[in-house]
């Protein structure tokens, strides 16, 4: 049986909570949860010290989440729910910092998760923590024994760093109360209305408007004495629409909006205008010619460049990848070498809250291992200086720089926060286009490609796959040397190897554009931002996007029989009588 899953961002298991939220909002409760965690952690540490092999580190991380999600399509709600949830993660390391159960492929043995009671019942909370801890000890100790055995027989690893860094414990309780929940009915009304805006466009086959807001509080208690309570909040609205070209190519447009609170999201009028724009873009894409494979000058908008850097560079700066024997390790050996043109610098700075008036989604004060967030200058004037580090040391980088991040239920790894690309070789954005056209002429090409917006891509950093990355463009234009108007094309994918492509950047614009989103990797989904100026490449290579083989719908949508936006498969049969809509 074929299942088609429509795409939804950031939905957890959701429901309409009838549970009173006072338990999750008041400050005394927050302390009771943390105190219970600390007491039980202490008891567990003491008891397990008598075992062999014994854990040398333990932590309890609890996340209270209050989340509302509403989605609508074609003027009808398709999903609407709220959920309160308290998840506990017990993390444990058995062995020693030099070698423990989380080594290499065994990292997942370091965590066991479960749901905790939602109220202040310390007995019940402590008892579930005890269950999870006992289970985690069984898992971690067995994994450690395996790791010890494997380590003895496997060939020497390249990177012999320890498995855990030494960090100072932190004590910081941010007891700001959780925001009251969003009014589900209001959001049902808004998404319903917005989604209905697509109904008048028969060439839009599928569309969704989804709203998701969550407020959370994270508690962390560790056997090293760290005690943290951190609030978090995110509101996200996504509009997505799809169609298909006559040759079967799937075409999609997505717009997403992200802020800390729902009130900071755009107005209904602005969103309705986006709906119309998305529909217009899809219509234009359907009519646009399919792109040919091409290698030549290209210009990326700031937003496109930001995503480009997140994918091509950002993921490759993640600390744990430098050590994983299965990873490509593109940059591992290039510390203190030029990896970018000398006029470019890249920093990842989670301490930044906003840039040019735009909130940055990757802001946080402490990472998920309790290490303070820090600004990391990863590339300085083109030279690789640093990686994004969790508490997993790598060769020559023995400490965390506050980039250990995860979603609940998964072990943390080094992740991006706010990736900021700056340039010292800039011109005004308007002038960049002129320089772009000059470059096209210089190379004797008929046109160059301008990438206005991209959908996001995926990166294959593993050794088993080619060092390819794909940043999936959405709106791409041919910019002609001879002054013809720009021409939209469809089906373009940027390809290439990271090292080569980055070094083709020759000039940038002077304004940073911000891109907020959710990034997924081994340690799960985390909010991130990336900022970059528009960029001129002397060469970008593109290939034709793999098309779906399914042609557009045979019949027009119900209600559009007379307009017949999509030519019916068999023209002779269009006049057949059928029930009226």
């Amino acid at each position, binding site marked *: *049986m*074929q299942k*088609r899953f*429509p*795409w939804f*961002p*950031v*939905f957890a*298991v*959701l*429901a309409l909570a009838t*549970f009173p939220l006072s338990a999750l909002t008041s400050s005394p409760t927050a302390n009771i949860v943390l105190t219970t965690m600390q007491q039980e952690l202490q008891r567990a540490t003491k*008891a397990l010290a008598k075992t062999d092999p014994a854990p040398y580190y333990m932590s309890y991380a609890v996340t209270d989440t209050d989340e509302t999600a509403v989605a609508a*399509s*074609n*003027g*009808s*709600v*398709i*999903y*609407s729910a709220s959920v309160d949830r*308290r998840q506990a993660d017990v993390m444990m390391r058995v062995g020693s910092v030099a070698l423990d159960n989380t080594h290499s492929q065994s990292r997942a043995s370091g965590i066991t998760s479960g749901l905790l*009671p*939602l*109220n202040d*019942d310390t*007995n019940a909370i402590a*008892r*579930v923590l*005890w*269950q999870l801890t*006992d289970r985690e000890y069984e898992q971690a100790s067995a994994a450690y024994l395996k790791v010890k055995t494997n380590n003895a027989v496997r060939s020497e690893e390249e990177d012999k760093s320890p498995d855990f860094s030494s960090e100072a414990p932190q004590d910081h309780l941010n007891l700001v109360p959780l925001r009251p929940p969003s009014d589900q009915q209001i959001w049902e009304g808004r998404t319903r209305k917005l989604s209905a805006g697509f109904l008048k466009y028969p060439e839009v086959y599928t569309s969704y408007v989804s709203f998701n807001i969550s407020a959370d509080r994270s508690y962390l208690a560790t056997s090293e004495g760290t005690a943290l309570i951190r609030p978090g909040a995110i509101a996200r609205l996504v509009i997505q629409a799809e169609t298909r070209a006559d040759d079967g190519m799937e075409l*999609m447009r*997505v*717009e*997403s909006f992200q802020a800390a609170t729902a009130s900071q999201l755009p107005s209904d009028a602005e969103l309705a205008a986006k709906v119309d724009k998305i529909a217009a873009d899809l219509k234009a894409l359907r009519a646009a010619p399919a792109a040919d494979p091409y290698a030549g000058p290209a210009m990326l908008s700031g937003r496109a460049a930001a995503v480009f850097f*997140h994918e091509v560079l*950002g993921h490759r700066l993640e600390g744990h990848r430098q050590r994983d024997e299965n990873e490509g390790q593109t940059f591992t050996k290039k510390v203190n070498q030029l990896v970018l043109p000398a006029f470019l610098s890249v920093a990842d700075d989670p301490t930044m809250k906003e840039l040019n008036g735009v909130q940055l989604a990757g802001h946080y004060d402490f990472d998920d291992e309790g290490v303070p967030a820090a600004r990391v200058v990863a590339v300085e004037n083109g030279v690789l200086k640093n990686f994004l580090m969790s508490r997993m040391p790598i060769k020559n980088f023995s400490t965390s720089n506050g980039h250990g991040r995860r979603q609940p239920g998964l072990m943390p790894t080094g992740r991006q926060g706010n990736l900021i690309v700056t340039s010292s070789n800039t011109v005004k954005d308007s002038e960049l286009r002129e320089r772009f056209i000059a470059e096209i002429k210089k190379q004797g090409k008929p046109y160059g490609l301008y990438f206005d917006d991209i959908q*996001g891509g*995926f*990166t294959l*950093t593993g050794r088993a796959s080619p060092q390819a990355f*794909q940043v*999936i463009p959405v709106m791409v234009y041919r910019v002609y040397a001879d002054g013809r108007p720009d021409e939209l094309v469809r089906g373009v994918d940027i390809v290439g190897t990271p090292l080569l492509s980055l070094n083709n950047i020759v000039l940038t614009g002077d304004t940073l554009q911000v891109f907020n*989103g959710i990034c997924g990797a*081994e340690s799960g989904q985390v909010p*991130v931002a*990336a900022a970059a100026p528009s960029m001129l490449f002397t060469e970008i290579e593109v290939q034709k996007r*793999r098309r779906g083989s*399914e*042609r557009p*719908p*045979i019949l027009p949508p*119900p209600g559009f029989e007379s307009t017949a936006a999509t030519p*019916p*498969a068999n023209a002779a049969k269009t006049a057949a*009588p*059928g*029930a009226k*809509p």
Partner: protein
Amino acid sequence: MSAFVRASAVTAGPSRRFAITVALLLALFLAGTGPAAVAQAQQAQPKSSAAAATGASSAAVQSDPLLKAMREELDRSKSQLKMDNVPAPYYVEYRLSDVDEYSAEAVFGALRQDQRIHVRNLRVVVRVGDYKQDSYYGPGTGFVNIAPRDDDSVALRRELWLATDRAYKIASEALASKKAVLSQYTADQPFNDFARAPALESVGPFVKLDFTPAPWKETLEKVTDLYRTDAKIQSLSAYVRFRAVNDYFVNTEGTSTRQGYIVYSLNLSAETQADDGMELGRSPFYVGASASELPSQEKLLAETAKMLQSLKDLREAPMVEEDYRGPILFSNDAASDILDGMIGGNILGIRPKPGDSARTTGEFSSNYKGRVLPTFLSVVDDPTMKSFDGKSLIGSYQIDQEGVRVASLPVIKDGILIEYLLGRMPIRDFADSNGHGRAAPGQSPSPNIGNLILQPKESSSPDELKKKLIEMCKQEGKPYGYYAETLVGNNPRLLYRVYVSDSHEELVRGAVFNELDTRTLRNNLVAAGNDPLVSNREGAVPTTVISPSILFDELEVKRTDKKNAKLPEYPPPTIAAH
């Protein structure tokens, strides 16, 4: 889907998907249980299924906006949907399932989950070919998607339009694949791919959940708070799941139906370990058609206390050390598991894969008209029965998810297998559905039981059966026989030795049955009780089995070879006063 699924205008790392939650959502469509006393609104005259179904449908169907919208889009598709060089569909069906589910869970006296979800999904099947051979194969067995939750015919028809288009394109490919696979086999399939069925119009009442959450949450907390009474109880949790499903169904043969069912269930779960580490658990469940049919809070507290006591007794019970082969008595509770698994699972007329010449999957596939039980036993499946002994039967229904009406059906008569339960997929010698094509929301229909009832021609009281057990053991010179009170799977959970000398009972642990299978049922069942028990079961579709106690003259008991688990590394936290 292409790489589009991956990113939400966001960069994604190595193969990360966002559709996880929708998958979770669709996974929730494991149907619960629950009977609904469905009254027929109207019975239309059956039409020939070969006729095109564009005639006027009954007023009841027209008055339901969802059925009306579904029928309109169906008619449009049937009359217009056609690709060049591909045959037009000969059959199309839509099923819209509305699911409203409440669930809550407590552990150690505290609530940790409390949620209500209301969603709809739709399933579209397009068949090309004909009744003899069609495209219902591989991906051609149905296209499923989430559906609008509002009663909005515009949104619904849009969804149906796309789904039908997709299902049609898939069907044309599926038929080609199927023909390719079948070309490997020389013999023709001696039965049709799809059985004909008369058109049927029936709009039953829309069923709704009716309960107040607060008392249930309190009950869950109170019963699980009893962990305090026994320090060796490692885990004690309880959850409720209340689910209402309303299915809307239309097809191009003229069938239009709306049917609903409701199931209320409460499940307890407790775990402990004996001093040698053997893991011991109990998981009793209570299932009914309304909240009032579940036990009261007082009763549940008593039941939970009883359950905890039984775990204590199990901890202290001796291990089964020696093998035993002899008479064993099964309580009606234990017998219902056997009836469900060993009989219910094997009387289903499920067509095997192409090329497999067996009549059906399952162990009774070559037993048609043969003896499968002793001659004093019969089995009937009667989904039209709504209650028994004052209890609602959640396996009740009137019309299955393929739009076929069901009737009471004798399946095993005086030990002889005379029927298989069937949907519209014929098997050898069985050309027609008998109304057992059942499906959970979003799933493809498949033969399943409704209310399965074991009927002994002669029976004895439970006391008499116990006396008989002792008598048989005495004759064989055995010091004791066995009495199984409850099972888990095909193995005993509460098993007692019954001593011949004075009839006293002794609980034992660590036992498994050896070779308890359909042969045992045929050859070793010698008596049945007069104590039929209604066992409502919440599975993918709701079912009920009704069985009395049963007595085997020979069955083997031996010690389990499952290894004991380690005891916890350290004791649980001491309970602080509130």
